[in-house]
């Protein structure tokens, strides 16, 4: 049974993706015919297609970002919106937009997002290890504080300077895929692929890092270098996503844990399976967000939490040996 799970999850993803393309405020006549006729139906190809592809890419990117945060910190609670990464990306993008340097979704905005993500994550790690080695407790507390500070500045900036192109505080706090266009896909595609590829390349070292810094070092891991690379992968993947669609919290926490519960802790496998589960969760969440309260659209971050949280709780209740804390 277990050996069919990866294929089953992939099949679910394909079904959810097709469902997401088919379902929406406007009914698409002859959906299957239009699906094999690229560019013909404007609703399908200019509105839903970019949005669904963005959901897949952002879901996969945030899941792997969460996996990197947890792996690098050896901490089950770490994720981009807790260690400061998402807030750093938001702030750098908002500042760049308010100064008229870039527009949301452009490659320039993504570049600012990634730089902001790296800077904020590095700041969290630096502050958490000021007095001694990096402790889980310090990391999470400092991460939450850095996130709160940077998010507050984002909120104040977007409230003081009300400009549509800078997006709303709700966009930066809960995320939205509603304004995605085909032009935005290239940037999130590039950052997702780079982030995931980098994560895959360091995955075996993250397995060793889970045994503690000392044992990883004894096994030949350059601990500081691997941790830095994981944080870069985390920042590129999350920075690209957040600068384009805002902060979608919880997905980065839940997707890697769900994958770990099902498939075990090996990071090579987890990079792939977390991506698939992250993409699946976000595609389902986005379909629900834009359909269940029509004509209103629900913030995607809230729907993601509503779907992901019960799954995570159920898995913890079923099987609680995947992550042990000292």
């Amino acid at each position, binding site marked *: 049974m277990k050996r069919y799970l990866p294929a089953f999850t992939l099949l679910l993803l394909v079904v959810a993706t097709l469902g997401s393309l088919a379902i929406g405020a406007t009914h698409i006549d002859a959906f299957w015919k239009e699906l094999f006729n690229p560019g013909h139906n404007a609703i399908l190809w200019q509105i839903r297609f970019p949005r669904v592809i963005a959901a897949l890419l952002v879901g996969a990117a945030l899941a792997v970002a969460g996996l990197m945060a947890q792996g690098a910190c*050896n901490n*089950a609670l770490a994720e981009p919106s807790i260690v400061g990464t998402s807030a750093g990306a938001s702030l750098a993008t908002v500042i760049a937009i308010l100064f008229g340097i870039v527009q949301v979704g452009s490659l320039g905005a993504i570049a600012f997002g990634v730089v902001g993500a790296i800077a904020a994550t590095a700041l969290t790690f630096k502050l958490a290890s000021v007095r*001694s080695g990096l402790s889980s407790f310090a990391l999470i507390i400092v991460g939450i504080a850095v996130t709160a500070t940077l998010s507050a500045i984002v909120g104040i900036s977007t409230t003081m300077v009300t400009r549509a192109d800078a997006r709303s505080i709700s966009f930066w706090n809960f995320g939205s895929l509603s304004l995605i266009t085909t032009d935005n896909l290239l940037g999130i595609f590039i950052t997702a692929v780079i982030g995931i590829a980098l994560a895959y390349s360091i995955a075996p070292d993250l*397995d*060793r890092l*889970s*045994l*503690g810094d*000392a*044992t990883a*070092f*004894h*096994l*030949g*891991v*350059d*601990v500081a270098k691997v941790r830095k690379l994981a944080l870069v992968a985390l920042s590129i993947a999350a920075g690209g996503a957040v600068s384009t669609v805002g902060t979608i919290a919880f997905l980065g926490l839940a997707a890697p844990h769900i994958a*770990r519960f099902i498939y*075990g*802790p*090996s990071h090579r496998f987890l990079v792939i399976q977390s991506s698939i589960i992250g993409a699946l969760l976000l595609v389902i969440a986005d379909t629900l967000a834009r359909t269940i309260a029509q004509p209103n659209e629900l913030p995607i971050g809230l729907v993601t939490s509503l779907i992901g949280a019960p799954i995570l709780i159920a898995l913890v209740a079923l099987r609680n*040996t*995947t*992550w*042990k*804390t*000292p």
Partner: protein
Amino acid sequence: MITINEITIEISGREIIYGYSEQIPAGSITVIVGPNGSGKSTLLAAIAGSIVPIKGTITIDDVHPALTSAMQLSKIRAMAVQNQFYSLGFTVRQVIEMAGPADEIMQALELSAIADRHVTTLSGGESARVAIAQAVAQNTPVLLLDEPLAAQDIQSRRRIIDLLQGLAEKGVTVVVVAHQEEKDLEWADKIIKDLL
């Protein structure tokens, strides 16, 4: 041969080892004994290269651990830390295979029966044996073990000691930190005490 030459080690501003010299012969078992806080584990970590002395040098043959990359060092020495903690649910076999082939060493340390158990579910003694097995699987000329016999029952102790003696006969330099009385260390080729 491990050569320790006039080393001084400070941790958090506190001097743990001062002006200490020693030679550890190759292909033998050396046991470091002493009271808590005497610097036994610190000396072992310094030989492993994870702590750098502020004065003096340590060499394994002609290699300086403090100046060697983690990857290079992992081919020269292996080490099992005290109280190895496992946070992720890898199986016993997976953990050992992170260092090298697992079958032979799992058999020697009676771990074959629990090869597919998650390491997060092991007892203290089992965890310690998995850590030892992983270090041995790394197959290096120098093997460093911090308190490998603590938390082990009599049979497991015997098994570990037999294993170490077999490795030393094959030319492996084994350095062990232990809490035993000197009279219980008949299996050691050399005993180091009075680190302070």
